[in-house]
């Protein structure tokens, strides 16, 4: 879906990005993670041409963005910023459908679409439509911002540190919302964050970037288990114990694959899940599992003996 071909970026003497080669597949939720100043925001802004690379090229759906019609390119993708960035003088409905308005969509159609989009992000009450952003809480505002990004049914959504300003509880809710929307609509998502927990929780695949160079690209499991270099290992060091316990659990219990289940990142979270038919259903990094309670108890018992 997105392809970076030997992309470089320099401001004067300052090299921001060096020789980036990266392919993001259609329908995947790809997370670009790295410390601040690593160049990840510059990379995402190249997709909608807010930033133009000084060398190499960026392709979206096989077409060089530099050669695309700018308005068409931008209208075809959703964008969620770090702050909700809702236009304070417009109602929620007008905010959500602003791209549709630009496309010349009728008023009635926009209203219908706004209601549907807000419902999709969990804002069901009708009176949200006519309210102004200032009347909403921070979490609600970010939900509206996500609804706005979905307005044109885009094949691609760009998210730049979209949940970083939220408190942990809200952040988790928004991550769940994104995962369920992604599962439902299957659009490609390019998500930028500096938080490796978030990267591990959301990413189908993760790209780790540091000092303008891509360090490693892989599934969360690959990155945790086979870090490509010292930087990647250190960066995910604090995440490994918790994740490691889960990997250990999977290795020891060999659970059956399942259709779906709530996302978990720790064993403690599994223990809080409701039991049905003597089994626990959960998913780890896009894969759902069925685990009989007896097997779990056995695993925990053996751990205690150690």
């Amino acid at each position, binding site marked *: 879906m997105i392809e970076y071909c030997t992309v470089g970026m320099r401001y004067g003497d300052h090299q921001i990005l060096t020789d980036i080669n990266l392919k993001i597949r259609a329908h995947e939720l790809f997370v670009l993670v790295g410390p601040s100043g690593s160049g990840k925001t510059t990379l995402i802004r190249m997709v*909608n041409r*807010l930033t133009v690379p000084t060398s190499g090229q960026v392709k979206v759906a096989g077409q060089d963005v530099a050669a695309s019609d*700018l*308005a*068409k*390119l*931008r*209208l*075809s993708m959703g*964008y969620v*910023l*770090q*702050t909700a*960035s809702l*236009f*304070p*003088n*417009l109602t929620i409905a*007008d905010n959500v459908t*602003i*791209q549709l*308005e*630009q496309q010349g969509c009728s008023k009635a159609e926009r209203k219908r679409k706004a209601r549907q989009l807000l419902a999709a992000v969990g804002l069901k009450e009708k009176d949200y439509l006519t309210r102004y952003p200032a009347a909403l809480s921070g979490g609600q505002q970010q939900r509206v911002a996500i609804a*706005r990004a979905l307005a044109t049914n885009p094949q691609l959504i*760009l998210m730049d540190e979209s949940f970083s300003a939220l408190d942990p509880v809200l952040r988790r809710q928004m991550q769940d919302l994104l995962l369920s929307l992604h599962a439902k609509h299957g659009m490609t998502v390019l998500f930028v964050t500096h938080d490796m927990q978030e990267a591990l929780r959301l990413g189908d695949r993760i790209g780790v970037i540091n000092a303008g160079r891509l360090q490693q690209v892989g599934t969360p499991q690959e990155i945790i288990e086979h870090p490509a270099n010292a930087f990647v290992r250190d960066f995910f060091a604090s995440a490994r114990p918790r994740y490691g316990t889960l990997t250990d659990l999977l290795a020891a219990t060999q659970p059956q694959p399942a259709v779906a289940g709530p996302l978990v990142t720790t064993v403690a979270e599994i223990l809080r899940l409701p039991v049905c038919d003597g089994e626990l259903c959960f998913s780890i990094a896009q894969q759902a599992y069925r685990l009989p309670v007896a097997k779990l108890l056995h695993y925990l018992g053996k751990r205690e003996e150690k």
Partner: protein
Amino acid sequence: MQSLMKLIAHQQGQLVAALGQHLVLSLVSLLIAAVIALPLAMALKDHRRLGELILQITGIFQTIPSLALLGLLIPIVGIGTVPAVIALVLYAMMPIYQNAYTGLTTIDPQLEEAGLAFGLSWWTRLKRYELPLALPLIFSGLRIALVMIIGTATLAALIGAGGLGTYILLGIQQNNNGELLLGAGLSAFLALLSAGVLKWVGKSRRNLKIGGVVLAGLLVCGGAVTVQRHLVHSQPDTIVIAGKMGGEPNLLIHMYKDLIEEAAPQTKVVLKPNFGGTSFLYAALQRDQIDIYPEFTGTVLEGLAKQKQTPKSPDQAYQAARRYLARQGMTYLKPMAYQNGYALAVTASFAKQHRLATISDLVEQQAAVTAGFDPDFAQQPDGYLGLQKAYDLKVGTVKTMEPTLRYQALVQGKVELVDGYTTDPQLRQYHLRVLADDRHFFPPYQGAPLMKARFAKTHPVVVKQLNKLAGQITTNEMQEMNYAVTVKHQKASVVAHQYLRSHHLITK
């Protein structure tokens, strides 16, 4: 206070007209400035370097003193409403542009990035959030500009654009605090009122719509009045007569009107009283914006011809002025009898006590005398400086004071001697004695109608009628009439008409 009420009662019609003129002048200027500055700010919001440059330029306009700006505009566009509007527009540019530009360029960068990233067009961004978010600042800019325009528009009276400034200038010139207060008070009131209205208009979208409709209505009315006036002026047999600030020129132009209409009743005579100073009027005459105005011989020689030596005899002075004006393509008709030149005045009792009749008599008493002089008079070679030489006069103490305060100081006994003009109504009001200029030091100032030679040739009847005033009106008569108009607040048209009737210059 009483005189103020009297003034308002007497001049109701003119007052309302001046108020209307002032308002239309201000609103038209504001509108033009907004039509230029707002789109400019919108166009330059994404071109910061050029935008800042324009900001500097509008700031430079602001630093030019208004009087200087008007002076600069006269050779280019003449006098009247046009240069006044241009000057006001230039002044209003800065607050309107600065506020709009600041409003449009200080929008939250995250919002701007969102708008760009969503693929919104320049127009959609402007219409949907940039303008609405900048609106409070834009309105405060308009408000500042309007208050400033209404204040500055009082200067428009100087170049014949009328408005409330007429009252302020008249008040200063005639030492009439009532008129001054009236002009200043009304313009301040107008400024506050319009600022309030704009604030209300900016409060909601509904108010904005109502405000727009009212403004459009006002402009259509104002435009209709202007067009109508224009049509009146462009009628072939219309003669426009203007006069300088003050009661005396106003009296004279009413006499001109009566005289012309007596002989040519079908002619339409339009009067423009209180039209401004010498240079404005002369420029207007040259540009055919007016046809006739009364001018003094001394003013022509010293102000326009800038001669160093003015002839001492009134007739020589007139001939010199006439010759100079003829070279400029002007015709200067024969002068009236009275002199409106400098004079030294004392109270009747002081004159009696010291047996003063002439300036030479004063020399004997000079050491004991305290004089109150206008600052200009005290320092000019054709004022006190020259007087010192001509009469060997050295007054004991000279206090310079505002012309408006001199006569009061004299009457209250704070000074014994003042300078003034021979036809000042205060001479009559306080029964003062003018000391005769027995050595003919003061240059002669005789009034006569001034017009273009071309106009005089094509209007022989006008020339004939105005020449009836030649040698008429003594200094005392002029003083009386000035007293009637500026102190007693009688109508200039009535006083002028009465004079002409009683001297059999007209029959109707």
